[in-house]
């Protein structure tokens, strides 16, 4: 800071950083309000099928995307509304997809679990647990094949790590030194099965030892901790084609899907309340206030802005056309 004080011109960096931090807060808030509306729309029957909300885990997606470049690649599991929004897909396109409309990001053919936007290098929503992890190794393989410096990022839950696809994908990524970042969003429960009832070891990050792969345990309720860990992993990937496993410890505040109550038989209300006290959005907002980056006026404006954006997305989705019957048989094969 002494350098800045001595500099003749004012340093733009702190202002830019403050903007970036407020942007992250806004991105998290957008996901929260979007997901709350998704829950409502589901209850109204406007969203069908399975719908897995991201409430509580917002810091993981937002902290990660803050690091990634537009030409990096992202693949996620079926709990991916948050990643899609954080990656810059519009609330309109995502909500319209949840509504199954033709204007949705996958033309209404994918739904909640299959959000895609090639223009954002957001390569899906995949709904077989662990099945997309080898795909990320494949994307990373393609990056190295072309001698690129992008990274391929996988989001998956801790329940996926007991699955062969996880092991096979990480082994090859490490063996071939591919620029992949494997992000395990450890929210403690695979549906209703606690981690310790499914995995012989508690620390998911330890599994990286099997592949001689760098790994970190990260506090997923702290968006800046996520951002910094992903930045280190991205550097390793870009600089020397080294993959990383990040175990990001987070928590879902809602049930596994819309049919699951917030705390059913598998976790207690006390536990949920305890984790809610560490709400990643409120915690981060408080930090920004303490740092003088956020005040009441800005916070309220941000809230109003986000609520408007989500309301607009719902309106757009409501008013959008259904796909016509001609859509049924298109896109089965590429001519």
């Amino acid at each position: 800071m002494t350098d800045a004080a001595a500099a003749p011109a004012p340093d733009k960096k702190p202002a830019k950083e403050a903007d970036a931090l407020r942007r992250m807060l806004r991105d998290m808030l957008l996901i929260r309000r979007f997901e709350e509306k998704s829950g409502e729309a589901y209850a109204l029957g406007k969203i069908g099928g399975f719908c897995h909300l991201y409430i509580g885990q917002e810091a993981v997606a937002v902290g990660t995307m803050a690091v990634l470049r537009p030409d990096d690649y992202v693949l996620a599991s079926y709990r991916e509304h948050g990643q899609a929004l954080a990656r810059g897909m519009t609330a309109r396109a995502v909500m319209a997809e949840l509504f199954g409309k033709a204007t949705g990001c996958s033309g209404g053919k994918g739904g909640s679990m299959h959000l895609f936007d090639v223009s954002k290098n957001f390569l899906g929503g995949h709904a077989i647990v662990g099945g997309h992890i080898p795909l990320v190794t494949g994307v990373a393989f393609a990056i190295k094949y072309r001698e690129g410096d992008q990274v391929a990022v996988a989001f998956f839950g801790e329940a996926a790590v007991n699955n062969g696809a996880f092991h096979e994908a990480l082994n090859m990524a490490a063996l071939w030194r591919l620029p992949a970042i494997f992000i395990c969003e450890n929210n403690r429960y695979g549906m209703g099965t606690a981690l310790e009832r499914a995995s012989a070891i508690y620390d998911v990050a330890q599994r990286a030892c099997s592949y001689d792969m760098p790994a970190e345990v990260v506090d997923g309720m702290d968006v800046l901790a996520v951002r910094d860990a992903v930045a280190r992993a991205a550097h390793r990937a870009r600089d020397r084609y080294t993959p990383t496993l990040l175990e990001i410890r987070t928590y879902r505040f809602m049930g596994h899907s819309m049919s699951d109550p917030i705390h059913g038989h598998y976790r207690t209300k006390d536990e949920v309340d305890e984790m809610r006290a560490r709400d990643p959005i409120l915690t981060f907002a408080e930090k920004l206030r303490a740092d003088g980056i956020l005040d009441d006026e800005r916070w309220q404006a941000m809230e109003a802005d986000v609520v408007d954006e989500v309301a607009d997305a719902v309106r757009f989705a409501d008013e959008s056309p259904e796909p016509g019957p001609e859509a049924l048989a298109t896109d089965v094969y590429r001519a």
Partner: protein
Amino acid sequence: MSVLTYRDALNQALREEMTRDNRVFLMGEEVGVYQGAYKVSRGLLEEFGPMRVVDTPITELGFAGVGVGAAMVGLRPVIEFMTWNFALLAIDQIVNSAAKMLYMSGGQIPMPIVFRGPGGAALMLAAQHSQSFEAWYANVPGLKVVTPATPADAKGLLKSAIRDDNPVIFIEGEMLYNTKGEVPEGEHVIPLGVADVKREGKDVTLVSHAKMVAVALKAAEELEKDGISAEVIDLRTLRPLDAATITASVRKTNRCVVVEEGWPVAGFGAQIVDEIQRAAFDDLDAPVLRVTGADVPMPYNRHLEKLAKPDAAKVVQAARQVLYLPTL
């Protein structure tokens, strides 16, 4: 035109396509240093290097998924399974990832990938190594299924498969690799979805694919000795299916036997019979019969194995039956 083995015809197709398009790469177990479990990839590692001829761990699910991921971002992988028996470990990636990527992405992500390797029984390899799965894959929308029977078809169809923007299941035959035939040099490309009449005839149609084409041809020779003229159709591609060629033949012969190596229940032959009864019902002079593998896991014992497999004698009997001739 030169005489090549089926194996070398495939090798030539791979070499030509890898030379033509640097997005094409080959990945699988033992494809590189070992030169291929069946030597289909002989010399390719030396020519194209380890980034384009990639040896994998024994991890079918994993490397099938790696192929799908690479195809998602524009490479054109050829994924070799040492045999299709092992691909059962990868069927999640083939069906859940590759086959529906274009559809569930609303048309955004094409999937130009070939999964290839030998299918069907060889000799005395027993239950886990002697299976025909083409009917399973042909059931799935989004996949194409190709089963070449001759060296020339192997080359021409593999070149088409590699150039196709869709996932192609390419099923070769362990017992076919050493078979020889004339193969056109260079740009010899056979479109997918076009059957081939391997032998013309007028009394009965024998529909077959892959290794069963040779069986049907042998049966046709036997039938000829009794003055019966059999037409042999090689489907070449099961999906998309060239139903028109089958129908045209049945309209001419009025009788049909479908030969397949796989199991009878829900086998691919049932699909052929369905096509025929809808398109050529009034042309049939006899019910269509099927000659299939026995409805059992493949036994090891050579005599039992022979009983389990379709052969020319069984096809001859079926042909005589649809002609209402006494069986031999």
